[in-house]
């Protein structure tokens, strides 16, 4: 049975002969390191936003602080930093680690890969400065202006080219299901970026709003979801030591994600100013998403049969399974919110904030953490510095998120019913908001826990890179008999 540790050594030999000094998997490693820096920055901004929601005069020291740190500028900086500084590069790191492993071929060009890492980070840093300056486009998750969007699309294109050449050179003919999901994201990510950012800059009216919400939903649905699920399908057999339960089921999941998710945009405008047919076109596929979610769940339960006890000793597996569970919960919550009745109460409330963090933090970020803890030791040949810090990372993240999430969901329900009682404008509106004060404080506390978890994470990774013990041999790959 081939182990990828020996594979890594072989590749190192190849590279020494051919090109220069860039070691295999450097692209993946650098994406991991840079993304962790953005994760910490994004969460500092998150805390500022949370505290400003409790005390609007927080940080209003003088005009300069008031202007550049106003809530309306910090909020998109938070979402963009965690989405395009942290989580997107986190799955780029998974692309650049998993694709060479599964194809048993070295990355086509590690040099190009490293270039794309730095190009991405520099472009995002400039985009962040522009957001501070108020250069925002009023479309959620697409706030960075066109001069940032275009380089981002080009850099993504270069990464896809690099990985596509790797896949064409593959030594393993059969495309394991993770490669299906990743190949899907390689066409969907550039395509949704183009659809969401380019035409919207020139169009107007509700048609444009429908494009905007197609983007909002599908940067999650056509990028984070298939990238995250693909990562789950890679990690699960490795961490549990069991082959995947059903290959067919995972492929059904792949095609139903692709076919249904892309329609979900209009469900953000349910009850809103759009024609009824468009609402239905958004709601029905939202409900049908139960199918791909069920395929993932059935496959996870099937694979884990007889291996559940491993969660207690394997922290990576614990991260991954918890992430999968939260992904599942997000996909139960999502279709529920898309129905006209619940939407009439919950839309526009704090509930949405809790829902947005459910798949992105508790779901796919936890899966990405598992991926980092799994891949980094194998890339740099060192063991994770501290298992105990991993546990602190886990518990702070999970408990912090639960406080955060339930604070937002409860606040959202109270807010929704408060509005239904007629408290929609003026003093009555503010009164409902005042009653939510303790939930906003709870959110800031939960968020602080989440942030502490990430400090443990960053410190652990830093120590692993600088002082981790040399790693032992690799376990076998049960998925590729």
């Amino acid at each position: 049975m081939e182990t990828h540790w020996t594979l890594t050594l072989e590749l190192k030999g190849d590279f020494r002969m051919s090109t220069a000094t860039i070691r295999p998997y450097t692209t993946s490693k650098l994406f991991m390191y840079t993304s962790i820096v953005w994760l910490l920055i994004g969460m500092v901004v998150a805390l500022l936003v949370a505290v400003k929601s409790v005390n609007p005069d927080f940080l209003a020291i003088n005009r300069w602080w008031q202007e550049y740190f106003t809530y309306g500028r910090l909020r998109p900086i938070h979402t963009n930093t965690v989405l395009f500084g942290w989580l997107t590069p986190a799955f780029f790191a998974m692309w650049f680690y998993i694709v060479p492993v599964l194809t048993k071929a070295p990355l086509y060009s590690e040099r190009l890969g490293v270039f794309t890492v730095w190009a991405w980070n520099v472009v995002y840093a400039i985009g962040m400065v522009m957001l501070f300056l108020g250069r925002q486009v009023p479309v959620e998750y697409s706030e960075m202006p066109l001069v940032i969007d275009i380089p981002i699309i080009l850099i993504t294109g270069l990464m896809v080219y690099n990985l596509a050449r790797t896949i064409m050179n593959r030594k393993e003919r059969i495309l394991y299901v993770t490669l299906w999901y990743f190949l899907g994201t390689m066409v969907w990510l550039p395509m949704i970026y183009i659809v969401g950012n380019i035409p919207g800059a020139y169009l107007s009216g509700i048609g444009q709003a429908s494009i905007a919400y197609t983007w909002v939903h599908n940067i999650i649905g056509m990028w984070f979801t298939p990238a995250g699920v693909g990562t789950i399908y890679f990690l699960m057999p490795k961490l549990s030591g069991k082959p995947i339960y059903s290959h067919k089921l995972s492929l059904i999941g792949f095609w139903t994600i692709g076919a249904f998710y892309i329609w979900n945009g209009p469900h953000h405008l349910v009850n809103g100013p759009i024609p009824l047919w468009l609402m239905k076109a958004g709601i029905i596929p939202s409900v049908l998403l139960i199918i791909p979610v069920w395929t993932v769940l059935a496959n996870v339960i099937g694979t884990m049969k007889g291996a559940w006890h491993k969660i207690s000793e394997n922290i990576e597996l614990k991260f991954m399974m918890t992430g999968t569970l939260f992904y599942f919960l997000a996909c139960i919550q999502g279709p529920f919110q898309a129905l006209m009745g619940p939407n009439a109460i919950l839309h526009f409330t704090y509930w949405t904030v809790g829902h947005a963090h459910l798949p992105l933090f508790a779901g796919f970020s936890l899966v990405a953490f598992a991926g980092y803890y799994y891949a980094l030791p194998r890339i740099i040949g060192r063991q994770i510095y501290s298992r105990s810090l991993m546990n602190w990372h886990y518990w702070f993240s999970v408990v912090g998120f639960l406080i955060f999430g339930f604070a937002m969901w409860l606040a959202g329900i109270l807010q929704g019913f408060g509005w239904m009682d007629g408290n929609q404008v003026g003093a009555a509106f503010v009164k409902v908001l005042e009653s939510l004060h303790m939930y906003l404080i709870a959110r800031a506390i939960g968020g602080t826990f989440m942030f502490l978890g990430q400090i443990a994470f960053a410190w652990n990774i830093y120590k692993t890179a600088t002082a981790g013990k040399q790693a032992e041999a690799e376990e076998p790959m049960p998925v590729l008999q």
Partner: protein
Amino acid sequence: MANQSEKNIGALLGGAIAVFMIGIIGTCVLPFFDSSINTPTATAKLKNYLPNSAEARGRVVYIKEGCYWCHSQSVRPVKADSKLGPVSVPGDYYYDKIPLIMTQRTGPDLTWVGSRYSPEWQYEHLNNPQKFYNGSIMPKYNYLSEQDKKDLVAYLMSLKPAPAAKAGAAGR
């Protein structure tokens, strides 16, 4: 377990692009052909600001400071919106280069805010929201230039239903 089709990248990529494009045509292209969307209402015409008018400049300030993160601009035919005025219809947004509907109501909906307060009130409220509502969590916008504040007030005052639309939507 594996069969020929699972080695075929062409089929995979072709299928992935196809499912994507079908969804995009359904949700991003077809809406532009719907008459309720591509026919401007009287209200939409009120919001079709002249270039460099105070309202147009005010809208830019509204976006730059991120007001839309806390204020929606969409009145729905639901109980939670019953006191907000006439229900928004697709044609109301015809001229909005990016409609500012957004996803959050940390502050009240502003679809028809122009018919609720006076310009003087708006100006004072921007400077110090807590003066009017003690528990308000809206930031003070006293850091804006006088010009920006006046433009922003002009924009907010322009957010009102056209007289004809008001009568038409009253039967909700």
